[in-house]
């Protein structure tokens, strides 16, 4: 069974992390049944990852909450409000997805 992981980026005006690199690293860590997409037209995502470049997390909007059954929020050096080093962000997100 395929599990759809949706990526929603912030606009990236002054990111303190490399957002694209982070998503690539998460992708590498996941098993093949996890499909990563940014396409919002294909219906509700199983898991959404909000990838924000800084702690402002300006893309965190109520209108997106229905786009996925579960959300993981990366905001700068944090995952779901917990501060983490940049080099560990991908592992932490991947672990949360696989849980």
């Amino acid at each position, binding site marked *: 069974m395929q599990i759809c992981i949706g*990526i929603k*980026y912030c606009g*990236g005006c*002054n990111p303190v992390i490399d*957002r694209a690199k982070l998503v690539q690293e998460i992708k590498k860590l996941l098993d093949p049944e996890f499909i990563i997409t940014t396409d919002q037209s294909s219906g509700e995502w199983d898991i959404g990852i909000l990838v924000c470049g800084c702690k402002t997390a300006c893309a965190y909007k109520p209108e997106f909450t229905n786009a996925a059954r579960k959300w993981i929020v990366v905001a700068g050096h944090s995952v779901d409000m917990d501060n983490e080093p940049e080099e560990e962000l991908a592992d932490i997100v991947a672990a949360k997805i696989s849980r």
Partner: protein
Amino acid sequence: MALKTAEQYEESLRKMNLKVYLLGELVKNPVDNPIIRPSMNSVKMTYSLAQDPQYEDLMTAKSHLTGEKINRFCHLHQSTEDLVKKVKMQRLLGQKTGACFQRCVGMDAINAVDSVTFEMDKKLGTKYHERFIKFLKMIQKEDLVVDGAMTDPKGDRGLSPGKQEDPDLYTHVVEKRKDGIIVRGAKAHQTGAINSHWILVMPTIAMSKEDADYAVSFVAPADAEGISYIYGRQSCDTRKLEGCEIDVGNRQFGGHEALMVFDNLFVPWENVFMCGEYEFSGALVERFAGYHRQSYGGCKVGVGDVLIGAAALAADYNGASKASHIKDKLIEMIHLNETLFSCGIACSTQGHKTDSGTYLIDLLLANVCKQNVTRFPYEIARLAEDIAGGAMVTMASEKDLRHPEIGKFVEKYFKGIASVPTENRCRILRLVENITLGTAAVGYRTESMHGAGSPQAQRIMISRQGNLEQKKKLAKEIAGIKD
């Protein structure tokens, strides 16, 4: 189609027939002209980032007119959040291009014209807003570039438009016909004009009754019969003709300005948004200038980010990055740059809804923002030059670096730290040169001074909006003064 690809944008320009003069010659193909091309690449970036999921949250918006996803540059701000996103988008584009990306002036023009034409129609019963919205829907659908054109040549600054020896020094209506108007005059310093599909003309100052013919606003295709462009020179511009990439500093991106001349341009009534309603000209100027002064709190910050990065790399390559004064200078540059950003964000969050529903920035804070922009980029540039060192203006050319005989000396004597190739040091010093005194300095320095209005224009607005009487009341109350 509500979003064009970058390639579609470039192709759309190729189909246009603009009359552009550069260095004394008519340019047959502006898109591929080596002097003009980098500026087109900058505008192109506004299209390519809108297609990228990493940036779409800032680069796109939902049209309140059609519900379609559109490029933010074609959007009317529907909330303070939209105003904030505009500034962030501009910072992003400044970072990606290190230059002026030119499309802001049209965005600021459509937002100003929207609310003013709405208010004009409400008071005077005219139909300008209806015409404007029809135009805007087309712009949004086709994802087109609009060049907002405000600044007239002005001639003798001590005389009003109608008192000039040459009446064409301010753009004006010379004839009203059944089917439209004939316009003569010019618009100066037109950013991005050659890369635009349409021009949106606005009056340059608040007009009085005797200058009603100068109170004119309209749109025209950028390649309409009767419009010609004289391309503005930039410092070091002909380096782009030398076939080298290091010496130009920024090989891919740039900006441009041109003098836009209207030689008896015919404009059909459906494209006219103001014609003689002089009492609304002041509001249009004030709002456009306000939006554009907000813009500089984004775009100049993005270019500043690139310059700060270049200065920091120059310090690294010079082996000077550990010196405490270098660290302190970089801190000062960041402090100044983020202060500009703070002003851009502040005037956006304190914006308000106008009668048409479009949001306007806080005018006082937008003018404070721009007043700071007239100063801080100069100081940031000064510090960048301080950190970079004199080689940024005395360094040998790329051709000397590549020369079979003397190249080894250039390689040897322009070397910084051992681990960094001389070429990389040359590249970063040339980038500092480009932004501080080369082609990009047009946008980063002098445009920071005079673009969106010269410093005194902001001081007049700050004086008007400063609420000084309230401050006097506060002081009297604290001091126990009873009048």
